[in-house]
């Protein structure tokens, strides 16, 4: 067996999810190669080559990979897999991996497996279904195993490797889609999916203004990433990439502080693997208290500033 990890990057930097994917790929007990396809990505290939446990980097450079379209990348990955005899393909379960892996699998005529949280060898996986309320063991005899992995379930691969970088010719440009632009949230805070502490706000905050006014000082104190419930995103308090849950991001920080969030199962699906959960809610019967290690019943507009001040006082 031979496994190909698809690197996720912005042509300048390797995404954290790839480090988790490399660790997951080791579970196959076979050599792990990393495909870096993009434009002017020497730095990314270098970063990937420095990861422990990586046998080789396959670098493909072409202008039509710059924007990482699933259409062009899927054709390339399928070519590499068939041409070089790979029998496993692993990507992080991020919007990038979810967009690409099923398309690639369909080109290879194999059934992909999404959001794997544990691997007991090739073709034996566990994955969550029904918003994480059920775990299922999936067995696959497919000749090529194509999977995406839940990043919080696998540690980041450490550095310490020195793999070689081999260049490979690009596949054709399908020319069926074009990137017009990106509006990416800029933040000095840690990345939500990988943060050690997450402070999340829900509809209880009442407005975007209040969300920032109340939660930012607390997040600053804790060095936390900011997250939100779907209701807070739908109401426009914060952008979409803040959403935690079944259909948003999955997080598993050491500390998750849920403020003004009721605790719907779709929200719990995204955070119930956090080590310590704190809930602040004025409704003593809110379902969030059923998963919280420490629940504070009270008005968030009083409690959260007190908490931020209390932490500052040391």
């Amino acid at each position, binding site marked *: 067996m031979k496994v190909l990890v698809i690197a996720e990057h912005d042509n300048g930097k390797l995404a954290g999810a790839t480090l988790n994917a490399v660790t997951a790929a080791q579970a196959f007990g076979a050599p792990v190669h990393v495909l870096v396809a993009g434009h002017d990505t020497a730095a990314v290939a270098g970063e990937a080559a420095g990861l422990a446990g990586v046998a080789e980097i396959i670098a493909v450079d072409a202008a039509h990979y710059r924007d990482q379209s*699933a259409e062009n990348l899927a054709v390339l990955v399928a070519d590499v897999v068939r041409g070089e005899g790979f029998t496993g393909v692993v990507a992080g379960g991020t919007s990038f991996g979810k967009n690409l892996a099923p398309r690639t699998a369909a080109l290879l005529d194999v059934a992909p497996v999404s959001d794997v949280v544990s691997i007991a060898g090739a073709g034996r996986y566990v994955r969550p*279904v029904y918003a994480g309320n*059920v775990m299922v*063991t999936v067995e696959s005899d497919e000749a090529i195993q194509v999977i995406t992995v839940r990043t919080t379930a696998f540690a980041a691969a450490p550095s310490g490797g020195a793999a070689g970088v081999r260049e490979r010719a690009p596949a054709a440009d399908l020319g069926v889609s*074009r990137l017009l632009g990106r509006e990416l949230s800029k933040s000095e805070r840690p990345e939500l999916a990988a943060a050690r502490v997450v402070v999340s706000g829900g509809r209880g905050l009442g407005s975007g203004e209040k969300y920032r006014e109340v939660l930012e000082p607390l997040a600053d104190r804790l060095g936390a990433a900011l997250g939100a419930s779907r209701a807070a995103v739908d109401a426009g308090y914060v952008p*979409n990439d803040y959403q935690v849950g079944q*259909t948003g991001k999955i997080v598993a920080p050491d500390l998750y502080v849920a403020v003004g969030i009721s605790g719907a*199962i779709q929200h719990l699906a995204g955070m119930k693997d956090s080590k310590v959960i704190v809930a602040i809610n004025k409704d003593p019967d809110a379902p969030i208290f*059923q*998963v919280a290690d420490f629940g504070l019943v009270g008005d968030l507009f009083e409690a959260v500033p007190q908490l931020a001040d209390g932490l500052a006082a040391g």
Partner: protein
Amino acid sequence: MKILVPVKRVVDYNVKVRVKSDRSGVELAGVKMAINPFDEISVEEAVRLKEAGIATEVVAVSCGSAASQETLRTALAMGADRAILVETDAELQPLAVGKLLKAVADREQPQLVICGKQAIDDDANQTGQILAALMGWAQATFASKLCVEGETLRVTREVDGGLETLELKLPAVVTSDLRLNEPRYATLPNIMKAKKKPLDVIPAADLGVDIAPRLRHSQYSEPPVRKAGIKVADVADLIARLRNDAKVI
């Protein structure tokens, strides 16, 4: 422009499912079923495109057992013009659904297919991408905005870092995210009207594609439940416990 909307019958999102005692699956007997919420959003988007004079026909399609007719009637009541049930009682996995949908798309020749980004039961998030690959069409997953401009489609996608806007050549496959629109409620007169709209049933076997499952689901289990902790007295108590008991700050 004709739009095809694949809709799936799933366990209602309010239901907390239970694993069967023999761990062979999830208890579905007597459980409330509904149209997958993302598919409701797709139907809404297609109907809006028709109301705006951009789409000429909206066709809803579901693959599954006869019970999925109910799901298709929901789509018809929301404004789809007709429906197709690809009927089978066999277990369907996303690759098989993709192949069945391709066979339907080959017959129907839509310019646009709007799938849901994921079905809330199996949470696979695969079918739209698989269909796009099998058709050789462009894809835009996790759409929060969609705009038809002649022969091209402009789609804003929700990605991990924020938003991304793509221009796709038609025909194409789009998968809907939560914020694409807010679906309407079907009114009683429209529910009555939907009963008279055409609903064709095609036996899956007639489409001549291999739908045998590729994956086995050998065991289901419920993850360990998280126990409720304690309610703290006040903020000072909370800080003390986070410092001394949990040692996370």
